[in-house]
C-alpha cells in the first residue's frame, strides 16, 4: 500500500510550527526576563481570578 503522506511534507509542517513557536517566544517578555532583563512583566501561569469565565470575560453584573 502506498504511504498516506509524504515524509518531507510532515517534517516541513512540524518544522514551521516549531519556528513559529520559537519566534513567538524570542519576542516575549518571558524570554527577555530569562535573558536577564529585570524590568519586564512576565505572565507565567496566566490566570485572572477575578474573571467570570475561563476566557477572562467579566461578569455581566459588572457591565454597564
Amino acid at each position, binding site marked *: 500500500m502506498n504511504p498516506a503522506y509524504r515524509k518531507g511534507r510532515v517534517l516541513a509542517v512540524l518544522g514551521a510550527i516549531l519556528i513559529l*513557536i520559537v519566534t513567538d517566544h524570542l519576542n516575549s517578555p518571558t524570554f527577555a526576563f530569562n535573558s536577564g532583563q529585570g524590568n519586564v512583566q512576565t505572565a507565567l501561569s496566566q490566570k485572572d481570578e477575578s474573571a467570570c469565565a475561563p*476566557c477572562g470575560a467579566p461578569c455581566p453584573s459588572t457591565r454597564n
Partner: protein
Amino acid sequence: MSEVAAPTSAIQSPWQVDRFVVVTALVGFALLGGLIWLETAPFMVALFAIGTVLGIALYHGAFGFTAGWRNLVVHKRGAGMRAQLLLFGVTSIVMVPLLYSGQPGLIGAVAPVGTSLVVGSFIFGLGMQLGGGCGSGTLFTVGAGNLRMIITLVFFIIGTVVGSIHLPWWLDQPGFDPVPLVASFGVTGAIVLQLVGLLLIARWVSRIERKAHGQVASDELLWKQKGQGFWRTLITGRWPFTWAILILAAGNVLTLAIGGAPWSITFAFNVWGAKALQSIGVDMGQFEFWQWEYPAMALKDSLLTNIPSVMNFGLLLGAMLAAGLANRFNEASRNKLQGRPFLAAVVGGLLLGYGARLGFGCNIGALFSGIGSASLHAWIWFACAFGGSYIGIRLRPWFRLPN
C-alpha cells in the same frame, strides 16, 4: 472527536508501527518539552506531558462527542453518549471537592448564563457536525494527520477571533453571573444533583437504544477489547471506553491540581489567531476582549506560558504518536477533499470557533470541565449544543457527509 479518524478495532496482523511518525512525534515531544523546561517552569512540562497523554487517550479511545451524539440521533446507539456521561460523573466526584477544598489558587470552569451562552453553544453544536469534530476532536485528528480537519482547525481559529471581537456585545445582552451549584446545594448536594441529572440522561439514552434495537449494548462498560492482548491494545488501540474515561478524568483533575484551572482547549485557538493577526500589523488591543486581563496577558507573553496552548501542543503530538503506533497516520486523508465536504469544513470550523467563544468553550472547557466544576452553565451548554448538533446532523447529507 471526528468521525473520520477513529481507529478500528479490527485485528491487525502482523503488528505494524509507523516508525517515521512515532520517531518524529517523540523528537517533537523532546524538543518542545526541552524548550518548555528551559524557558518556563517544571509544572508547564508536566502539563505538556498531560496534554500528550490526553491526545493518546482521545485517539486510541476514539472518544468522541460528535460521533457519540450522532450515533444516538441517527443509529439510536448510546454507548458513546453514556461513556461521556460516565466521564462527567467520575470527574465531578473528584473535581468538585478538590475545587471547594479551600486550597488557594484553584479556579473552576464557571461562566455567565445568558444569551451569549445559549447562542454560542447552539452554534457550536451545529459546527461540530459540519466541521467533523469538537475542540478536542479537531485537535487530535489534526495531530493524526487528517487534512480535512486541518481546514476545520484553520477556520475554527478564525471563528474564535471573530467571536472574541463580538463577545463584549453578546455579554451586554440579557444574562446573569455564573451559577455554581455548590453555592446553593453544598459540595455533596451539587455532586448528587449532577449525578442524578447524568443518570436521567443515561436512562433516556438507553431507552432510545432499547426501543430501536430491543436491547442496550453496554460497550461503555467494557474493560477489555475483544481479540487483542492487553499490551497490543494499550500501544496500538483501540482502547475500551473505560480506559479513556479514567485517563481523561485523571488528566482533567491533574490539570486543575497542577495548573490551577480545569482543562480547556479553545482559548488557545483565540490566542494563536490573535497573535497571527498581530504579526501582520493588526492591533488586537483595540478590541475590548483583548484588553481584559487574561487575554491581554496571553497575547503579550509567550505561547509557552499559556497553559491551553502548551497542553494543545502536547495533545497534537500525543495524537500523532498514537496514530503512528496504530499505523494509521494520515489514513483518513486518502480521499481528496473538494466541493461540499470542503465547504462543510470551512463553515463548520467558523461555527465551531464563533460558538466556542460565545459559549465560553467547547465540549472540554465548557461541558466536561464545566460539569466537573458543578457550574449551571455547563448544563445549559449541553442542552443547546445538542440541539444545534441535531440540526447539523440533518444538514450533513446536503454537504455530502455520511451519517
